[in-house]
Structure formats: structure tokens, C-alpha cells
């Protein structure tokens, strides 16, 4: 791909092509734009660029018009001709396609003004929406590989490690181990034949967490540059990027990026003529959540059964094929070029005394602005949920937030002003984890949440050690019994004993953190467990077995005139009543499936 002379366009359309928007037909919109631009004869002036994930996934498919940073959202193919003519030809931005905050009337044209983006500080996601991930030139234009040049030519390995150490960067995978210290350990670890490896952990098994994916899709080169700098610092000879096979777009883009980097002499032999050799190979994970754990990941790369092994020896000493190995998360590597470029001190200026820099959270669940947010450490939950997240949809009350995915815990509404960093989350019983943040409102049943997350870890347990294999299953059985109203008091104490032992005695991180959802929901929402057990009731009506469905005869007659819709839809013939009469539910037959509640348009069916 020869470097054809770049033409100057007056407008660049940054169309978001992250997985979410792609699944929302982003590519069709791109074609519609190109077709329309050609029709209007603007093909030499307006350039369409597909970028990685822009972050505001709630409002996909998205486009940002540069210059001017105009943000269009929820585009449909139908409106493209009108948009092209109105804005690109006549220069009048189209108001009705702009983002309009739920309460306000006037849309906000400029992206940086929008609440969702305003409070974010982009470090790892600095290039999102600005570059085409499949063109290395775009990355280079954004000061890409400048830090690599600086690291290779002006800095010694010790200086690089020093820079990373003073930056206070800690592992973004979840454990939060100081990166500088880890690099120092791997650098010091002896290796008889000089072989040392670095690994980029892109397994990201947490359900609801997708920041690694969006970094790999939006800005693969920052990861490559980060690994190159790490390799120089540690003296590593080979690098591996371990990506889930369930991220095909990310795999495609990282492979393209690696090829382009090799073609430009930024990877492989004698990089940039400096004599430094380093190459990266992509290894695709087979979809086991446990392979996110470093030793299981190593086993998986080595081709063995993906199961963790006891530590010590830690991978820094004896990792991949027995050689010293440094494993860091995608987001950790993405921060490295910025730290080298702007210095550790600058990075340390962001965040709290113990947790420096920014963290990308995937804000999901009951929130208006679902998407990826990169916020400085120390920001409070309230700011994330209300300022950035745009509050809870449907005016519902905020109840809790689950951070750290299935290994994390639930933080109740009372702690909304909790500043977010490693220590604060751990103290609250949860953990930073990969950065998944699931917002829950009053309609969420905490017992069911605990059951859901536990069913995930139970299913993903590798089964090697007794507590995790047997313990998670036992806890799941108890929780399932409780959500079906068959729970007893002893179950509760056994659940706690199990949770404590599994957390204490499991071999690897998965087992050690699997009980967190249970422990935190027990700590903050013990009353909900009690109501489930003693009163056999689920306040949030989520645990259907505990609901009692009744029909209000008066509403049914007056409003519904006995429309008989519910009876027709009831699979277990539990509803009695002829057309025109008030209907009744026979509780003995009712399997509490909730269909009648859903189909009744008149609200006659009551859930208690």
C-alpha cells in the first residue's frame, strides 16, 4: 500500500465502526454517505473515515464531523441524503440528528459540550474517533511511535522503567499491581538463554466489560507501541497479544496493525535502524474466562489445558515456557506511550495518591448513557452515574452498582459519593477489576444479581481446585433455592461459610473473587435475602417464583370489558373467565410465568 499522496479534504466524517455500531449497521450508513457524497460531487472535499468505538454506544450509530467536532447520533440510512445535502453541501448542521439530553429541549452540536464526554479525560482512548485504525499513517499523524523513537534512542531501559514507576501506573487488568515494579522484576529475573516474553492480556472475559476490545479496535498501534517500549525496558525478545476469539473485528484490526508496523520497520528485525529486534504474535483465546488469569493464559499460549498453576513461582520469574514473562492488560499497555511522551510526573498528576492516571469503565445496565467512559481515578460514583451516565432511565431510583464484573461486588446507593480507586473499591468489598460497571435500579433483585454472577463464575470455573469447583456449585444451588422461595436460615449461614472458604482457599483469582458478589450483597442487602427466605417475597418482583399474580376484577371489567387476552395467552390454563366477565387466576395452576401481566393492556393484572 504505497503512501499515495494524501489529498487535502475540507471535511472528514469520522464514522464510528466499533463492534456495537457495526452491529447497528454502521457500515451501511458509511456506504450511504459515500454514495450520497458522490452524487453531490463532493468526493474531493468530504472524506469518510471509519474509526474505532467512539464510546457513546447508547446512541449508536454515530458520526463526528470534523472540523467543528459536530456529533451526530442514532443515524439511519434514510436520513443520510438529507444530512449530506444540508450540512456538507450547504454547511448547515442538522439539528434533529444531534444529541439532545433527555430533559432539555435544545440539542448540543459539539461533541465536547455533551455531558457524556465533558468529564472524561482521554489517555488510553486518546485517539478514539480521530483515526482510522486500519491506517498506520493516521496513528503516526497523532504523534504515533514518537514515544518509541524517544524510548529507543534517548532513554535507557532503567530510565523507561523509572518513568513508568514514578507515573504510579498500576495494572488495569484488575489486580492493580504497580506496572513499574512488575517490569523491574521481569528485567531482573535471570533467563539462561536470554529469552524473555511480554504478553498483552486481551482475554477480557468479564461479561459487560469491553474496553480492551474497543482499544484494540480503535487504536491497535498504541498497544503495539506500548509493548515495544516495554520490550526495550524489560529486554524481552518476543511479545504475544492474547485476544478472545469472540472479538473478530479486534483480531482483524490488530493483525492489520501488526502487518503495517512490520512493513514500516516498526516491528521485527532492526526496528527503525536502531538494531532493536522485537516481534509480536497474536494468539486467539478459546473463550475460557479462566484464561484471563495469568498462569492459565500462559498454559493456553503453550497449548496446554487452560488451568492456573500455584504461585510462586510468579510468571515474572518463570512464566511462558519457563522464561520470565511480563503480562499486562491491553489498557495498561495503551497508557505507556503517553507516559513516555508526556512523562511520569504528568501522568501522576491525574488520579488519587494511591491510584494514578485514568481508568476506562464500561458503563452498562440501568443507565441512560451506556458506553465507554475514561475517567480520572478519584472521580465519584455520582459523577459517573449522573453527570456522565445521564442518570437512571425511567426516573427509577438508583440502587447499587456492580464494579469489576463477576469477580467484583455490589456497591450500594449510600456509597454514591465513594471516590473510585483500587483501594476504595476493595475496601467496599468489590474490586476495580477490568472496569465493568453495571448500574442497578430499584427494579433489580440483589439476590438474583448475585445468582447471575455466580452462575457465570461457576460455569467458567476450570474445576481444578476443590473449593472453586464444588463451592461455587454449592453456593449457586443455595442461591437458586432462595430465588425459588425454598431457601432456609441454615442455607444462609452455609452460604456465608462457603463464600468465606471459597474466597480464602481457592487456588487462583477466579475462585478467590467469585464469592464477592454474594459477600457484598449479603453485607449491604441482607434484608433482601431475609425477605426472600422468611416472607417468600421478592421486592423487585424479579424472582418470578415468589410473585403472586392476581387480577383486579373491577379494572378488568370496567377498562378491559373482560377482553380475555390474558386467558388466551396463559399456557397453563390457570385463568378462568369468559369473554366479557371479570377474569380470575387459579393460584394452584399458576406457574408465575408473568405472561398475563405483560399482555394485559389495562393494568388489571397485579403483581404482589
Amino acid at each position, binding site marked *: *500500500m*504505497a*503512501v499515495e499522496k*494524501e*489529498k*487535502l*479534504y*475540507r*471535511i*472528514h466524517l*469520522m464514522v464510528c465502526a466499533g463492534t456495537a455500531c457495526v452491529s447497528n449497521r454502521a457500515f451501511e450508513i458509511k456506504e450511504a454517505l459515500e454514495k450520497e457524497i458522490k452524487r453531490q*460531487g463532493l468526493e*474531493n*472535499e468530504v472524506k469518510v473515515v471509519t474509526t474505532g468505538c467512539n464510546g457513546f454506544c447508547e446512541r449508536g450509530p454515530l458520526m463526528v464531523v*470534523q*472540523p*467543528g*467536532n459536530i456529533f451526530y447520533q442514532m443515524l439511519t440510512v434514510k436520513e443520510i441524503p438529507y444530512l449530506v445535502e444540508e450540512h*456538507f*453541501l*450547504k*454547511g*448547515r448542521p442538522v439539528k434533529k440528528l444531534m444529541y439532545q439530553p433527555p430533559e432539555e429541549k435544545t440539542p448540543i452540536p*459539539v461533541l465536547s459540550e455533551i455531558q457524556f464526554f465533558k468529564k472524561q479525560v482521554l489517555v488510553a482512548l486518546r485517539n478514539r474517533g*480521530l*483515526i482510522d485504525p486500519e491506517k498506520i*499513517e*493516521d496513528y*503516526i*499523524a*497523532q*504523534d*504515533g*511511535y*514518537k514515544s518509541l*523513537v524517544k524510548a529507543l*534512542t534517548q532513554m535507557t531501559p532503567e530510565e523507561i522503567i523509572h518513568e513508568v514507576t514514578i507515573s504510579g501506573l498500576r495494572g488495569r487488568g484488575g489486580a492493580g499491581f504497580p506496572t513499574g515494579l512488575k517490569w523491574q522484576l521481569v528485567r531482573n529475573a535471570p533467563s539462561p538463554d536470554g529469552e524473555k516474553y511480554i504478553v498483552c492480556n486481551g482475554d477480557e472475559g468479564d461479561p459487560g466489560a469491553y474496553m480492551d476490545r474497543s482499544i484494540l479496535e480503535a487504536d491497535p498501534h498504541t498497544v503495539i507501541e506500548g509493548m515495544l517500549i516495554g520490550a526495550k525496558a524489560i529486554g524481552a525478545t518476543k511479545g504475544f497479544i492474547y485476544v478472545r476469539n469472540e472479538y473478530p473485528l479486534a483480531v482483524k484490526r490488530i493483525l492489520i496493525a501488526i502487518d503495517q508496523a512490520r*512493513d*514500516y*520497520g*516498526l516491528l521485527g528485525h*532492526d526496528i*527503525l*535502524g*536502531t538494531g532493536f529486534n522485537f516481534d509480536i504474535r497474536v494468539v486467539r483465546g478459546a473463550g475460557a474466562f479462566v484464561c484471563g488469569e495469568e498462569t492459565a493464559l500462559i498454559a493456553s499460549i503453550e497449548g496446554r489445558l487452560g488451568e492456573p498453576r500455584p504461585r510462586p513461582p510468579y510468571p515474572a520469574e518463570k512464566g511462558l515456557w519457563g522464561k520470565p514473562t511480563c503480562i499486562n492488560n491491553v489498557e495498561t499497555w495503551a497508557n505507556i506511550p503517553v507516559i513516555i511522551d508526556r512523562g511520569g510526573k504528568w501522568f501522576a498528576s491525574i488520579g488519587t495518591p494511591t491510584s494514578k492516571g485514568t481508568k476506562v469503565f464500561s458503563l452498562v445496565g440501568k443507565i441512560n448513557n451506556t458506553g465507554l467512559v475514561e475517567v480520572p481515578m478519584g472521580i465519584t460514583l455520582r459523577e459517573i452515574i449522573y453527570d456522565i451516565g445521564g442518570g437512571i432511565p425511567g426516573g427509577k431510583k438508583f440502587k447499587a452498582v456492580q464494579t469489576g464484573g463477576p469477580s467484583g461486588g455490589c456497591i450500594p446507593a449510600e456509597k454514591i459519593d465513594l471516590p473510585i480507586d483500587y483501594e476504595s473499591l476493595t475496601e467496599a468489598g468489590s474490586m476495580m477489576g477490568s472496569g465493568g460497571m453495571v448500574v442497578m435500579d430499584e427494579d433489580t433483585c440483589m439476590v438474583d444479581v448475585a445468582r447471575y454472577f455466580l452462575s457465570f463464575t461457576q460455569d467458567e470455573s476450570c474445576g481444578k481446585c476443590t473449593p472453586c469447583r464444588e463451592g461455587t456449585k454449592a453456593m449457586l444451588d443455595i442461591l437458586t433455592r432462595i430465588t425459588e422461595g425454598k431457601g432456609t436460615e441454615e442455607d444462609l449461614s452455609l452460604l456465608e461459610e462457603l463464600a468465606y472458604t471459597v474466597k480464602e482457599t481457592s487456588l487462583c483469582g477466579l475462585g478467590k473473587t467469585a464469592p464477592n458478589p454474594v459477600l457484598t450483597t449479603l453485607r449491604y442487602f441482607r434484608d433482601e435475602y431475609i425477605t426472600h427466605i422468611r416472607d417468600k417475597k421478592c421486592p423487585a418482583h424479579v424472582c418470578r417464583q415468589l410473585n403472586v399474580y392476581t387480577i383486579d376484577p373491577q379494572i378488568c371489567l370496567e377498562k378491559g370489558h373482560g377482553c380475555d387476552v390474558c386467558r388466551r395467552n396463559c399456557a397453563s390454563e390457570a385463568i378462568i373467565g369468559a369473554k366479557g366477565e371479570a377474569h380470575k387466576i387459579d393460584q394452584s395452576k399458576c406457574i408465575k410465568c408473568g405472561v398475563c401481566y405483560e399482555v394485559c393492556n389495562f393494568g388489571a393484572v397485579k403483581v404482589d
Partner: protein
Amino acid sequence: MPKLTIEELEKLREEVRKTTFIREQTQFRAKINVHMGTCGLAAGARNILNAFLREIEKRGLTDVLVTTSGCAGLCSREPMATIEIAGQAPVKYVDLTEKKAQEIFEKHILNGEIVTAYALGIGSEKTDLT
């Protein structure tokens, strides 16, 4: 693709930046607004626009914004363009030709003197430059 040395990398960076600057530039020194209403287009506003673009490209400037807008109302004197230097009143030029456009670009944009010969009027509705 030849393997890059460090110098070539820097050269490439400058090269590409020349076309992608607009993606993140927010402050501009000057703004050229070519009026592309249906009448403007018919009168050849597109050539004027391209002329301006080539001038910028030739000099590799990264602080001049080129935008288009709808018809300015004076269809008889199309093609027209409004040139605005930050902080100064915008000047509307009429009956433009590519040659005139180059002349205006050099004199007005680069040196800041208004080419009164081609100008219709100075100062019109205020546009903000964000």
C-alpha cells in the same frame, strides 16, 4: 514499503498531519466560507472552493478553515465567498474567479490586506468560529 528510518518517520508524520489536522484543530486563524447555494454552484463556486483548497495545500497551512454555506442571497453576483480573519469583521467577495481567489488568498489571508476591488462589503452577521 521501504523500512523507515527515524527521519523518514518524522517526515511521514508531518506529511500526514497536513491532511488530518482538521480532525482535531479547534482554533483557526482564518475562515473561508464559500457560498454554495444552487445559484452559487451553477456559477462555479466549486472551482473557487478547490482553488482555495489548493492554495492551502500548496502552503501546507494548518490554521485556515474552509467551509461552505448556503446561498448568501445575492445570486446575481455569485460565486461569492466570505473571508474572515479571527477578530476582524468578515469581508464578502463577489463575482469570483479562480485567479481572483488566488489573489484574495495571498493578499487577504496571508498578508491581512483586504482586496477592496473585489469586495462587496465589509461586516455582516457575526459567525462564531468555534
